[in-house]
């Protein structure tokens, strides 16, 4: 038995770049029919990012970035600058349960596709609007660039090495993707509500608020104590040692975290220095925390003689929290992720076989969901216009001629 939760749910998807497409990617993998609406006038920007394997831009269908954010969706092309294009979009929306968009401003309103308009097309419609700073308020027309949002929302001010400057956080798309998952959750909750009551709604998600939701310690240290936190590097407010230590080999590192005295004793035994456990400087948690500069030196003296996996394996064996710091290429090769089938090979009509990461969605010890290749631009025009909208061949040809279907 493998029934998908969103089978029978249709999504009219106006999302682009990272934050929006990742929302509808979750819905598509869960079985929804996601119809991505683009046009040759405005193809999704990621279609021209990171073209895989070639030096030159090989058209619009060979971007890894697009493939990794848009699998399992269908694609059609509508020229939304023409009134007839907007009419076509409305026809798709009338047959949809959910509409999604993440424009850098009130584009939907300009098209006459704001929430009140959509409600007239379909009373129980769920509209998802993702943005950098919200669909209301002083920045409602600001485009959503994750590093700009992270800077504004306080995340950047907390990211960095102890005593150093704030640094832009992690992968470029971090906040795009964390926001997208919140968006997917909100849509699923709205669907749950609609099943029970028949009522749709408008979801307004702001990426900067997502950053805040993940920073309660810093926010509440301010609201309780008026304290402004700064970057802490890899250190923890309670645990010591707690860091990332240099190992043998090029840019090879291991992380180690010790939370109790028992773990500390186990650590000392595992590294062959049981006498460290009796050292006054490291006797208990507070002492270790106070003297962690010296402690880190000692530990790095040991880790330098081991590879990341040797050190991590030895420490885990002893019940101590430890692990390698994997580079992107090491993640791709990781045997644990391989055994869990986190990466899978997808046949793509233009790119051939591409290895892509799944969503973190597993049920009953197996990957869960529908995985199909990301649509080439306009790949499902025939399905959308002929089968779904039941348009005649001549009318479709006419609209192509007029560059409405474009």
């Amino acid at each position: 038995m493998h029934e998908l939760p969103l089978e029978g749910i249709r999504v009219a998807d106006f999302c682009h770049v990272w934050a929006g497409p990742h929302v509808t990617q979750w819905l598509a993998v869960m079985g929804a029919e996601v119809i991505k609406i683009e046009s040759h006038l405005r193809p999704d920007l990621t279609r021209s990012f990171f073209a895989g394997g070639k030096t030159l831009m090989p058209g619009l269908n060979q971007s890894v970035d697009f493939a990794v954010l848009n699998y399992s969706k269908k694609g059609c092309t509508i020229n939304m600058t023409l009134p007839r294009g907007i009419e076509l979009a409305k026809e798709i929306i009338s047959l949809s349960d959910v509409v999604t968009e993440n424009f850098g401003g009130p584009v939907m309103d300009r098209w006459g596709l704001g929430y009140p308009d959509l409600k007239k097309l379909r009373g129980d419609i769920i509209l998802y609007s993702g943005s950098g700073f919200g669909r209301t308020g002083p920045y409602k027309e600001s485009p959503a660039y994750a590093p700009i949002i992270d800077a504004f929302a306080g995340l950047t001010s907390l990211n960095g090495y102890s005593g150093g400057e704030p640094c832009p956080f992690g992968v470029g798309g971090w906040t795009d993707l964390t926001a997208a998952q919140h968006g997917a959750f909100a849509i699923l909750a709205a669907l749950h509500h609609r099943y029970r009551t028949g009522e749709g709604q408008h979801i307004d998600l702001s990426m900067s608020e997502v950053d805040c939701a993940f920073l309660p310690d810093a926010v509440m240290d301010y609201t309780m104590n008026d304290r402004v936190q700064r970057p802490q590097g890899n250190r923890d407010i309670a645990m010591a040692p707690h860091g990332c230590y240099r190992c043998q080999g090029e840019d090879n590192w291991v992380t180690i975290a010790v939370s109790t005295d028992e773990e500390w004793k186990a650590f000392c035994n595992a590294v062959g220095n049981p006498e460290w456990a009796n050292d006054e400087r490291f006797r208990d948690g507070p002492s270790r925390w106070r003297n962690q500069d010296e402690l880190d030196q000692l530990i790095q003296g040991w880790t330098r003689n081991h590879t990341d996996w040797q050190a991590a394996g030895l420490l885990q064996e002893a019940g101590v929290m430890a692990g390698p710091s994997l580079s992107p290429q090491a993640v791709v090769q990781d045997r644990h992720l391989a055994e869990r089938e986190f990466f899978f090979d997808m046949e793509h009509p233009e790119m051939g076989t591409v290895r892509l990461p799944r969503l973190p969605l597993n049920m009953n010890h197996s990957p869960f969901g529908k995985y199909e290749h990301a649509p080439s631009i306009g790949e499902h025009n025939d399905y959308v216009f002929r089968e779904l909208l039941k348009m005649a061949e001549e009318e479709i040809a006419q609209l192509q001629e007029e560059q409405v279907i474009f």
Partner: protein
Amino acid sequence: MSGQALSGLKVVEWSDFVSGPYCGKLLADLGAEVIKVERPGTGDKARSYGPFPQDIPHPEKSGLFLYLNTNKLGVTLDVRTATGAQILSKLVEQADVLVENNPPREVEELGFAYKRLSEINPRLVMASITPFGQTGPYRDYRSCDLISFNASGLAFVNPSDGVEDPEGQPPLKGPGHQGDFVAGLSGAVATMAAVLTSRVTGSGQHVDVSEQEALASIMRSYLGLHAIEAMTWKRLKGSIPGMVSDKYHCADGMVYLLCGQDRFWAQWMKAMGDPDWAQNELFQDRISRRENWDAAKAMIEEWTRERTVEEVVRTADASRVPCRPINTVKALANSELAAARDYFVDVDHKEAGTVKYPVGPFKLSQTPWRVQRPAPLLGEHNEEVYCNRLGYTRQELTVMRAGGVI
């Protein structure tokens, strides 16, 4: 308005610290009934983590705990006793969802494997949120935010613009508990997928969330690229194509400003009064600019250093160049946007008093996010849950309390 989006959903949260509790919070804040099960005595680890008002530790005043457990009922239970195990089984029998984040081996040893629970309650959705998931060679590895963040590849690419000294500056974890939050978030999305599936099939599933995968999924663009091309990620600043530094010192702080793209570059040069240096051929196209970014950035920074953050942001806004201050949490909390969008909500709690918490990061028009009750005191709802719902007498409650069961 007809209740909340998840009204009627019954959840038992047998979870500690951040990942499971954030999953429970997402559900509770949209109206699910969440019964949080804590160990007697010390309770959830987040109770001892802080931040605390005036830095005085108190189990009912930890900011992290208060934030993560809004809208939940709280009971104490030692599931390692026979009676405790029996009570947890009874709670699970009546629930739609069990959210747990305990070591897989421990869950099995205590008799709470999904297989057994599904016999008690075939409709049960059991969400297990653990560092490495329920299968694979690292299944039983012990972990915390630091270890998981590094095992996903995210620390290796943080900061996003690289480091000056790759020998002295290790891979960097995100501030606070970013990894644990993401695991809880992915858990909530996957839980909703299973809840909606059971609506159709009438049977539950075992949701298996691996924090390593949840975080690696955020890296999907980089991983897709690395899976296709043989690449080696270098952490040295300037060695990653496209990863340029976009933060600028001003007279009184710092801003993040994106002007590398052709359009923004032209607009920004104009905003700075078309300086002579910008005519240099090194800066004429995007590729060449990127190669000579340090020089360009130095020139721009000369200009920003003579101006306040407010002036730079105002100039950028007027010329439609993406730019925001690198705010501290304090600056964010006091911003016009935070006020206009209600970023923070006052929550009144018996012991901790009234404090501002971050709000939910999505606004649902018909079923708004809201705090109906503050985080529970340790064991606050023992009587309500054990007597009123499970039918134990007060006398039995006293016996269980004396025996350390609750």
